[in-house]
């Protein structure tokens, strides 16, 4: 089969049934735009939650220990997977922090050096709260550890918000994707239905189903490319120009994975896949059912 024939017929198909093609492209565009928007907003929300979670600290206050015992505790703390970073705050440092926070009024008290040395642990953002909580309980029993402070309530709230956002966002995304696929399938089916005379004529002269299908698949691919370009162009414009210009307070987070082309590339890929797959699905079913003689 001539590759040129498929290309020629694919392009011709778009121009011959303009309204049907426009409907397919528009439904694809809406679907891909919504998916892109949800991914960008969802990932930004996730990043924000991660940043907040990273700010949750576990403070391990030590008893009066020599350097060797302190090192033993540091080693043991470092072995936990959830520990993102570990900072030792000596009695002197604690006094300095106290002085800085309370100003001159705190100076005389700080000189008493009553503040204990401690370790400050930041938590890895993917850590389950239950894990940290159970470790914190254990830590309190360690020899040389005086007290452990951990803002359980804040972490619980963050975790539940992240879970709720992920669940709601995921469900919404799934619904949009499902609706988009059904919409794309139906519009492409209508496009193919509008070409039933062509399909009948092709069957009449002995075209194989695969041959009849290929220009439709290429047309679906083209529709995906066009819809993807518009949708990703709009998302790009939205987050590089519209939001910074008109809603600067929302412009605090960047593109997923740091670069615009991951999201826009993904949107293009999704658009092409949906266009191609919707065409394939509709074409297979419709072409097989079309009879030569009505």
């Amino acid at each position, binding site marked *: *089969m*001539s590759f040129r*024939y498929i290309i020629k017929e694919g392009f011709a198909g778009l121009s*011959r049934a303009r309204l049907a093609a426009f409907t397919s492209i528009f439904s694809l565009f809406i679907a891909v735009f919504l998916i892109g928007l949800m991914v960008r907003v969802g990932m930004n929300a996730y990043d924000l939650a991660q940043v907040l979670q990273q700010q949750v600290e576990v403070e391990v206050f030590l008893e009066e220990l020599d350097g060797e015992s302190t090192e033993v505790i540091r080693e043991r703390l470092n072995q936990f997977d959830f520990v993102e970073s570990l900072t030792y705050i000596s009695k002197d440092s604690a006094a300095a922090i106290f002085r800085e926070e309370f100003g001159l009024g705190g100076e005389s008290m700080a000189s008493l050096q009553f503040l204990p040395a401690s370790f400050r642990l930041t938590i890895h953002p993917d850590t389950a709260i239950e894990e940290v909580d159970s470790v914190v309980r254990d830590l309190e029993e360690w020899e040389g550890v005086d007290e452990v402070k951990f803002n359980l309530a804040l972490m619980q709230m963050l975790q539940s918000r992240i879970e709720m956002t992920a669940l709601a966002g995921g469900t919404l995304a799934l619904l949009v994707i499902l609706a988009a696929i059904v919409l794309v399938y139906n519009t492409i089916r209508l496009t193919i239905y509008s070409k039933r*005379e*062509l399909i*009948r*004529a*092709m*069957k*009449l*002269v*002995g*075209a*194989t*189903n695969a*041959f*009849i299908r290929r220009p439709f698949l290429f047309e679906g691919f083209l529709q995906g490319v066009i819809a993807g370009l518009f949708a990703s162009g709009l998302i790009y414009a939205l987050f590089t120009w519209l939001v910074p210009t008109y809603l600067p307070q929302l412009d605090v987070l960047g593109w997923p994975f740091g670069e615009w082309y991951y999201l826009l590339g993904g949107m293009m890929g999704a658009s092409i896949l949906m266009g191609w797959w919707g065409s394939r699905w509709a074409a297979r079913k419709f072409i*097989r059912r079309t*009879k*030569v*003689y009505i």
Partner: protein
Amino acid sequence: MADNTVISLENTTVIYDDLLVLDRINFSLRAGEFCYLIGRTGAGKSSFLKLLYRDILPDEGSVTVAGYDVTELRDKEVPYLRRRLGIVFQDFQLLPDRNIYENVAFALEVTGEKKRRIKQRVLEVLAMVGLSHKKKSMPSDLSGGELQRVVIARSLANEPRILLADEPTGNLDPEASSTIMELLKEINNHGMAVLMVTHDYDTVRKFPERTVQIRDGRLEEVKIV
């Protein structure tokens, strides 16, 4: 099936919605033979043709066309059977957005023919039906008779062994009908088997040939005088 038999039906039965359309019919058509298939509206003539190009399958019996056992044919093989047949319908089935050349070329494009071969063959068949000068015209610019000649040209493009024509003169005035009939006879004289469905007895009288009739689901040889 004898060597020169191109169509053969044996004890073939077709049932539509509990209605017996064709009842254990037997029929054969030899290479180069011309045959009319007549019968009242709804008698089963179109079903008979559909069996031949495998748009439907028989409920019983066998159907052999151009060497293909139609009942045993897999879906994938059906297009190859159809390439051995020229099929002409009353309603033309031309593509309105392509010119005459493209409509005929289309039959060869779908079989993967090379461009040069397509051009040569399209010009040949358009000359055969006397429409070389109309190759750039659109279907909407042609008369009914001319459109039917384009359909015949398209059906001949793949050099089939059998021409199946379903009421090819049904939409035409008497003069255009005669032109089409003369064309079909000429094609037949070149050795192609032609099976023509019609209920136009005047045409059958004017161009007498072997005639079979479907009545009450049965097929019988008749003479129209």
